[in-house]
């Protein structure tokens, strides 16, 4: 009964989405504001119905209702409840249900939270969202219906891949999907703007919080996936440039670029066509990821079962959405009048450089991911484009980005002064050079790239520190730092934290890749092995019985110079349904690095195959990623991000005058900056060299975050 309710809810949701996709356009054509307002109601209706459907499916999983074929194929009574729940989205049909749940959730949020948007624009945005939902609902109902029944119902389900029975992996898809689907809002904003025929700084201000929220979840989702791979797969690897991993990285790169370029649109009313294009491209990458996992064109650990019919449907769907929006772009781009002038050295240029490098990197990842497919189509030959290529591209493209990242926040808008920025950053340059030489000297083989990576990581961290110092004069006058710091806008802190996180990630990657120590040994009980200065002693090996597996567990005692550090208990598990063999690594994070132990096969005569690692600074990866996500959240919490008009005092040399917008008015056309030949020199921010007596920070430097 409940699954049928869910099924019916989906069908009604389809009808509501069709209405929601068509009615607003009609309403706008007729100028009927009441009809336009209906768009919000449709969004709420869609969300309600999809929630009912998703709830019905979840209910079927939780109650192990094997008469529903999807549940029978993917669940099992012996699974713990958490994994029954996460099993809902651990398969093709269920993951699509999650997609449409989150899509309708975002539509409802835009309807609810977008009150500051003009009614006409909001209706258009919701219409586009509804159109997306129509496509997905059609796909689900026609080819991937989770509510199909099995008659007779089997007594037991087929179980879920034991690899997926893991807390990290239970949360990885929802996070990622919120990221993917969140980009649909930016997409809808872009398409709506194209239909309307104009992009204003206000548009950029509206689109950023949604993009930022999606970006935060995408960052967290990717990091979670990497972290899961690290502790679950057992060899300390965390990224393989697998096609589907790339399919999550490309939207991340595009979303990062979008965040930064929309700043330029907002502050300087420039880069409009580019930003619109990015918004479309970012979501297109999300859709591409959805396609790749389900179409069977590429092989991947993430791939769901191959079905050519589904593949063709998604391809057609993608062609309509991506092709349609890009065609719209090609048609309407001339209407987006370019404006805003800035010199070659300015914050705008730094942001343009950021965008150029990120976009190029995303394009190169796309090329690398699709190259084997294209080559096979053209030529018949099969090659592999693996990590060596992507690491090469990353090094080439991201190194200049990291260097520029240090300078960017220190350059003024419109016309920056690079020598001033360089003066401020000189300590960072010195420090990074020092670290470069130390790392070269430390590793006698002289791995230059390791040195470069370390230098760049420290450069970025120190550049952020120095930039904060410039704004708060911490080194010059430490007292009162917190007061001054609190006066800085949250967006500044968000930006600095996120950038610092990136520097930490870079350091962690470089150091752990270069200096991981590993030992593959046959160990008997009582043997000791020295790895990275830590001694691992195999104390005993015991058999273990879990809820749906049996395992062998090794007990390691780890000591350093005779001092007790920890005990590790890695396992080698055998699941029965489906039969599979997995390892659970024993990991103990220290600041210096991770202690990592894995037990393998029994090698006869009381000896076991073991792998022991010391992975220096690897926790920096997860720490840096959390900093980035946290920085994004802090930025998001900045009130300026979320309201329609800027609050606070007007400052000289500030952005063009952004008027407050009444609710139903159209966005005003942006002002064109005409002559720029001899503009007045930008006012330098007050140098806080003297102690500031007042409690409020006088002129916080306007930031771009």
């Amino acid at each position, binding site marked *: 009964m409940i699954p049928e309710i869910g099924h019916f809810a989906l069908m009604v949701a389809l009808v509501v989405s069709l209405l929601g996709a068509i009615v607003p356009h009609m309403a706008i054509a007729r100028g009927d504001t009441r009809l336009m307002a209906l768009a919000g109601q449709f969004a709420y209706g869609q969300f309600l119905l999809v929630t009912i459907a998703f709830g019905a499916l979840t209910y079927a999983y939780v109650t192990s209702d094997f008469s529903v074929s999807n549940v029978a194929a993917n669940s099992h009574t012996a699974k713990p409840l958490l994994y029954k729940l996460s099993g809902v989205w651990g398969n093709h049909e269920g993951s699509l249900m999650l997609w449409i749940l989150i899509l309708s959730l975002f539509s409802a949020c835009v309807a609810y939270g977008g009150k500051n948007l003009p009614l006409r624009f909001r209706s258009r945005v919701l219409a586009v969202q509804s159109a997306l939902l129509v496509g997905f609902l059609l796909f689900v109902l026609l080819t991937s219906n989770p509510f199909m029944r099995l008659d007779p119902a089997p007594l037991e389900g087929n179980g879920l891949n034991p690899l997926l029975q893991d807390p990290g992996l239970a949360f990885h898809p929802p996070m990622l999907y919120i990221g993917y689907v969140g980009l649909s809002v930016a997409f809808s904003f872009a398409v709506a703007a194209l239909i309307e025929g104009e992009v204003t700084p206000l548009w950029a201000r509206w689109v950023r919080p949604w993009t930022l929220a999606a970006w935060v979840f995408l960052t967290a989702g990717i990091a979670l996936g990497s972290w899961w791979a690290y502790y679950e797969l057992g060899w300390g690897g965390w990224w393989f440039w697998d096609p589907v991993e790339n399919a999550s990285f490309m939207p991340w790169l595009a979303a990062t670029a979008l965040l930064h370029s929309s700043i330029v649109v907002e502050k300087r009313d420039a880069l409009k066509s580019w930003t619109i294009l990015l918004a479309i491209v970012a979501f297109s990458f999300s859709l591409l990821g959805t396609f790749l996992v389900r179409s069977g064109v590429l092989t991947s650990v993430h791939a769901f079962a191959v079905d050519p019919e589904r593949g063709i449907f998604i391809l057609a769907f993608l062609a309509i959405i991506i092709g349609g929006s890009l065609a719209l772009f090609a048609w309407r781009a001339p209407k987006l009048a370019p404006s805003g002038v800035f010199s070659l050295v300015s914050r705008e240029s730094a942001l343009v450089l950021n965008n150029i490098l990120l976009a190029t990197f995303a394009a190169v990842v796309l090329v690398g991911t699709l190259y084997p497919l294209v080559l096979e189509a053209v030529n018949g030959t099969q090659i592999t484009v693996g990590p*060596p290529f992507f690491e090469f591209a990353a090094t080439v493209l991201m190194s200049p980005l990291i260097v520029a990242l240090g300078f960017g926040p220190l350059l003024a808008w419109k016309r920056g002064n690079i020598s001033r920025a360089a003066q401020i950053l000189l300590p960072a340059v010195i420090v990074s050079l020092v670290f470069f030489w130390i790392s070269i000297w430390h590793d006698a083989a002289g791995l230059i790239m390791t040195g470069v990576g370390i230098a760049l990581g420290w450069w970025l961290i120190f550049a952020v520190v120095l930039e904060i110092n410039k704004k708060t004069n911490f080194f010059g006058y430490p007292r009162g730092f917190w007061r001054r710091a609190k006066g800085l806008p949250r967006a500044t802190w968000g930006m600095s934290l996120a950038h610092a996180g990136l520097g930490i990630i870079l350091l962690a990657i470089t150091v752990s890749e270069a200096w991981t120590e590993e030992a593959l040994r046959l160990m008997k009980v009582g043997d000791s092995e020295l790895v990275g200065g830590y001694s691992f002693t195999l104390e005993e090996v015991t058999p273990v019985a879990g809820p749906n597996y049996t395992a062998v567990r090794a007990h390691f005692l780890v000591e350093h110079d005779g001092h007790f550090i920890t005990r590790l208990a890695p396992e080698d598990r055998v699941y029965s349904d489906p039969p599979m063999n997995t390892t659970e690594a024993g990991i103990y994070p220290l600041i210096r690095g991770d202690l990592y132990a894995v037990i393998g096969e029994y090698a006869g005569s009381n000896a076991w195959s073991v792998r022991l690692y010391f992975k220096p600074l690897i926790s920096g990866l997860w720490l840096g990623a959390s900093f980035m996500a946290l920085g994004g959240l802090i930025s998001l919490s900045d009130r300026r991000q979320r309201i329609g008009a800027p609050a606070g005092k007007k400052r000289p040399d500030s952005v063009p005058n952004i008027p407050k917008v009444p609710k139903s008015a159209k966005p005003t056309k942006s002002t064109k900056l005409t002559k720029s030949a001899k503009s007045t020199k930008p006012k330098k921010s007050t140098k806080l060299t003297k102690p500031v007596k007042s409690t409020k920070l006088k002129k916080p430097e306007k930031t771009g975050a």
Partner: protein
Amino acid sequence: MRAASIALVFLVTMTFSGVAFAVAVDEKPLVDPAQEAVARALMKEIRCLVCQNQSIEDSNADLAKDLRRLVRERVSAGDTPAEVRAFLVARYGDWVLLEPPLNQMTLFLWGSPFLILLLVLVGVTTARKKSAPEPLSRMEKAKLKKLLKAGEQT
């Protein structure tokens, strides 16, 4: 008793030939540590043909084990890394190498970072030129000069 349970678990482990996501832990490293290091580095470059998202070093598939043994054999027989790679490519094609070869067919691939960067830069500068305001004419420049002078005097 404990030995029996260990033996039992061992037997159970051995019976299942399903897909293994367990870590590859190896049997016999080469006696010469330098050669072993060469062999290990090679293994990291070779793609597992069964668990296609891993190198043979990480994979626990049977074929990966055989290939690891093969790599070790050939290294200890004196083959250079290039020769070992060629040996495998002769049997499995370029697919087996994680690093795509640099040849006519992959020129675009390896050049793509530079090529695309160049194209984007060209696109950006073209767009900038198009959107830059027209330079001032001589009359306009003179007028501006006069205005600025007037502004400075006030």
